[in-house]
């Protein structure tokens, strides 16, 4: 098993994918920096009037500067009200079979940009609730995440400032200048590929057996898929998410959806470089992210390239690799790369069944989540999370060169370390504590869809996904129960807003600091050495945290399978 055994076509597609991404992210990043620095862009003539109307309606002064506390309160109030509205809306929608705990879970899921789905959307929700309820939160939760990032970047860029900008203005700009136009054009593209976009009735057709009938659900799918990918939401219109032919009909639509998932998170690093005038530091962060993404995606591809030894023993042709749970039109490559990308970012959309992946390939998505969703991560929140690891790294590296640790000339103090610790602790606590709670209770154990290690992996994955606001599911787990709906709902809410509060506190503390000019004794945060150290810190901290749990899940399953398949 080596990298060289992978087919040439895979290498070519990988290369093409990353080249397009690298070319596209730069103009987007620079554009984002212009928008949020209040400069004019080509969209200003079109959007400014809409902006003004919104500000007037909300009685908002977009130039009023907020300190971190006001900013945080605004974020929380906005999200609570949005979540509450969504919850009530779902509870009283025309479809009858939605329980209160499910409505809570859905509301929490969409308001936190997680998009964990423990229900079948096409049979649980009306088109109206999908559009007015979920799609709106797809935009807003992504814009909230992005606003937090912008506030964080201002904290890094500003010198001795008490304020971080205006949340309402950042929110409105994120939707109007970024998400809405991108989604519009992306949805049009998706329609050309055959993604449906209709308000018409679902078709009722008779398949081969003329006495039976099948309802084929349709709806305004393209518009929702566009924002689900661009906003790293990941919640599908259909249960099977991007494996559904109406959501993701062609290899080309799959390819561009993968690009859409990574576009804004990657461009955010460029935006950071532009806003702080530290392009080198932006590039350094991109390097660190790619250093995780590409090798781990390759490992995952390698694991899936070989067929499942148990199926091979039954006489299944191993030539295509491990095809169990995958769509023929995406194949092993399109499914496996997708899984890496949507877990590296906090998208969580899926186009294949992760629990049918080889154990090692199933481990990779878990690892990506356990890295804290910082390898690109969610829109906004991912880069914020990466900064937390950067702070940890400069703290260690700064001490090692005999300087009080500093990043971009700002000293990392006691308060900052408290926030950094909190941000690392919260998701770890929710994931491990939640999993422990689930495996200790009958209600939790009942959720496992498979026996032994596989069942444990499913539970661990669900808690990891919710606590880190990823939203992807390992599959297999039966989570539409009051226990899981409430547990996962709480994990999503605490994982999102606990961490966001700490991010903004950190941003406020950074903004207030004075920036020290660099000297010969200053740590260079753009050097390969630093990038390597950052990668090491992320890997060590997350691996050390989760190894005991992972050992009993995918690692044990791997050994189990290898033993059963006669591979040692």
């Amino acid at each position, binding site marked *: 098993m080596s990298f060289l055994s992978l087919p040439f076509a895979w290498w070519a597609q990988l290369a093409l994918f990353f080249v397009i991404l690298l070319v596209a992210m730069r103009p987007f990043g620079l554009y984002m920096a212009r928008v949020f620095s209040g400069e004019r862009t080509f969209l200003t003539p079109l959007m400014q009037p809409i902006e003004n109307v919104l500000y007037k309606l909300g009685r908002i002064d977009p130039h009023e500067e907020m300190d971190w506390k006001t900013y945080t309160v605004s974020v929380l109030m906005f999200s609570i009200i949005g979540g509450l509205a969504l919850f009530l809306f779902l509870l009283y929608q025309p479809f009858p079979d939605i329980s209160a705990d499910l409505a809570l879970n859905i509301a929490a899921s969409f308001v936190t940009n997680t998009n964990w789905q423990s229900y079948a959307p096409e049979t649980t929700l009306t088109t109206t609730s999908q559009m007015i309820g979920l799609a709106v939160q797809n935009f807003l939760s992504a814009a909230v995440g992005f606003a937090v990032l912008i506030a964080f970047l201002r904290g890094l860029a500003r010198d001795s400032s008490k304020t971080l900008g205006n949340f309402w203005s950042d929110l409105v700009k994120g939707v109007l200048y970024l998400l809405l136009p991108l989604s519009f054009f992306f949805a049009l593209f998706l329609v050309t590929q055959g993604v449906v976009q209709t308000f018409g009735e679902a078709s009722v057709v008779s398949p081969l057996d003329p006495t039976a009938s099948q309802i084929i659900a349709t709806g305004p799918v393209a518009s929702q898929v566009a924002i689900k990918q661009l906003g790293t939401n990941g919640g599908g219109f259909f249960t099977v998410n991007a494996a559904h032919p109406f959501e993701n009909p062609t290899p080309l639509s799959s390819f561009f959806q993968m690009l859409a998932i990574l576009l804004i998170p990657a461009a955010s690093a460029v935006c950071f470089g532009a806003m702080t005038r530290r392009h080198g530091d932006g590039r350094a962060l991109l390097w660190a992210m790619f250093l995780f993404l590409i090798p781990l995606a390759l490992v995952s591809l390698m694991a899936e390239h070989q067929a499942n030894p148990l199926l091979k023993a039954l006489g299944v042709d191993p030539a295509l690799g491990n095809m169990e749970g995958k769509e023929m039109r995406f194949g092993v490559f399109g499914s496996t790369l997708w899984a890496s990308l949507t877990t590296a970012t906090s998208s969580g959309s899926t186009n294949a069944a992760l629990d049918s992946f080889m154990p090692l390939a199933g481990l990779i998505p878990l690892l990506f989540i356990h890295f804290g969703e910082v390898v690109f991560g969610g829109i906004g929140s991912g880069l914020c999370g990466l900064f937390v690891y950067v702070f940890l790294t400069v703290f260690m590296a700064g001490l090692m060169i005999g300087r009080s640790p500093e990043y971009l000339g700002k000293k990392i103090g006691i308060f900052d370390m408290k926030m950094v610790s909190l941000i690392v602790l919260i998701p770890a606590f929710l994931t491990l504590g939640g999993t422990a709670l689930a495996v200790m209770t009958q209600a939790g154990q009942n959720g496992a869809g498979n026996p032994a290690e596989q069942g444990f992996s499913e539970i661990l994955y669900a808690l990891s996904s919710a606590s880190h606001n990823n939203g992807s599911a390992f599959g297999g787990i039966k989570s539409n129960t009051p226990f899981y709906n409430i547990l996962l709902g709480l994990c999503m809410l605490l994982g999102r807003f606990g961490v966001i509060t700490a991010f903004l506190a950190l941003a406020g503390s950074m903004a207030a600091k004075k920036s*020290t000019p660099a000297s010969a004794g200053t740590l260079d945060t753009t050097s390969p050495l630093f990038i390597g150290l950052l990668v090491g810190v992320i890997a060590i901290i997350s691996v*050390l945290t989760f190894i005991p749990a992972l050992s009993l899940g995918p690692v044990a399953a791997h050994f189990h399978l290898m033993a059963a398949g006669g591979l040692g």
Partner: protein
Amino acid sequence: MNKSAPMTSLRFSPQDLIAPIKLALLRLSPLHQIRNPVMFVVYVSAILTLIDALTAFRNTEHSTFGFTLVVSLILWFTVLFANFAESYAEGRGKAQAASLRQARSDIMAQKLEDPANKQLYQVVPASTLRQDDCVYVSAGQFIPADGQVIEGAASVDESAITGESAPVIRESGGDRDAVTGGTRVLSDWLVIKVMANAGESYLDKMIAMVEGAKRQKTPNEIALGLLLAAMTLIFLLSCATLLPFSLYNVRQTLSAAPPVSLTVLIALLVCLAPTTISGLLSAIGIAGMNRLMQANVIATSGRAVEAAGDINVLLLDKTGTITLGNRQAVAFFAAEGVAPIQLVKAALLSSLADETPEGRSIIELARMSYGQTPPSKADDMIFIPFSADTRISGVTQGDRTILKGAGDAIEAHILKEGGTVPPSLRGQIETIARQGGTPLMVAQGARALGVIHLKDIVKKGIKERLASLRAMGIKSVMVTGDNPLTAAAIAAEAGVDDFIAQATPETKLTYIRKRQEGGEMVAMVGDGTNDAPALAQADVAVAMNSGTQAAKEAANMVDRDSDPTKLIEVVEIGKQLLMTRGSLTTFSLANDIAKYFAIIPAVFMAAYPAFGGLNIMGLATPHSAILSALLFNALIIIALIPVAMRGVAYRPIGAGQLLRRNLLIYGLGGMIAPFIGIKLIDMAIALIMNGVAHV
């Protein structure tokens, strides 16, 4: 490290260990342990496993009892080793502080019981003097402390402080009653009332900094402590949740293997928690202060020492620091129509009574370059002493008056007498000033004879020291009362990055504030009372021991050697402190990788034999693997005490190089060392177990 280090032997002797060991045992009290959260976790773990062992003993589960007891013992030793590291460093620190006291008590004071009765005194060490004590000082003795003359008058040699060799008169009443500790009474006697506790407060503060229990932690240390506590919390989380995970796994797989035991979970937790750095953290801080004392510097706060590692700008006095205290005459330039020898003779005559180093250097130059020996003083010579007012000195002999002094002062005198200064001479004056020299004009009556070029002599080696500061990322700024032209020339010669010319206390203060507003950390070295405001404003302020009390009060460090370039050593000590903490933290975390490879297979092998594949060290049994990892974890604390005491060496090789070096040693080394260490311990354990089995 420093030639002037106190003479106490720092060599190792078994006797030195007894007190620290006693203290380490005493500090097993929970009240002391709770101060360090990471070690407190180990402490609680030790108690829990002990209870576990005793329970097993009562239930006569002999195999469990043995293993658990050994685990518990290792944990107790881990705590003890950490305690020992602290108490050992503390013992060293106290010995050092005691030797400082000793050094100070070299000056003895004659303390008066009753200020009115000078005959009745008691000879006590100067260090025991308190404010308002009265002392009697007679000719030839040193003044033991800063104070106020309440009786008597005497000439006092204050050259140690002012550099001025001429004695000054100090007397009771009026404005000449202040005396400074360390100066010497030359004639007569004084009764002095002590104004301050003889710098004793400094020593007290310093001693407090080497006492583990009283030590104020620096912000960097608190931040690191927080990070270590957070990591421990995470590991606590991942170990604690392993129990339910394991129970679930056993029930689900219907495995015959028992779930993971509490003892094993505790062992895993203690191995993963950053105990190495946490156990040594206190010792590192104390050892830093020890090194500072060895460099003969007394600090009032650990914070200032660490801040020294961060400074960007260093303000240095020109005189005495960058240049030799005195200017020296290097050339004579005769005016048009004046024979050079005439100028030299006149200059010589005018300098006869000039006892300043400058005056002496003129006589020296005349002898060396022109072979002129100074004439002996004659009775008819009336010397005009130099005064700051006129800036002129000279001599009158008969109808002949020779004056020398600052260019503009002499010129004013000549104009008043009805003479003129030739333009060529004025050009010469400017040239000298531009070169950083001081032009001294010599005139006879209304006639300008020429100028003497007085030059600041830049100290040997200062350029290199400034260069090494620059390599550390510290810009040097020269502070001088000279005019900008002169200052620029000397600055260029000495290689400083910037200068403040015509400095006053206000300009110094403004300069420091401006730099600080730009985000820079400023250090300043000073000795005079007029330095005090700037010293108080600077982030790191070092006062010379020979400096005034005001300067010492304003500073946060006092250099007992009065060596202005000592700051370079202070910077190194500050950096070493941080580097030692950072490097050992990295080491501690890097160790975890090997420990996982030892413990994870040991924990899961019973249920999943394939985990044995991860046992890449080939450890004998699960129990021996766990014990080896734990034992390594405990012993590494002892093994690293020398590193904590010595500190990780700082080299001015640039941040990137330094990071690479330390990462290689403590990061990569930290990954590899435990693989070797754990394997060796495991082999030893296996050997012993075999031996036991054979018996």
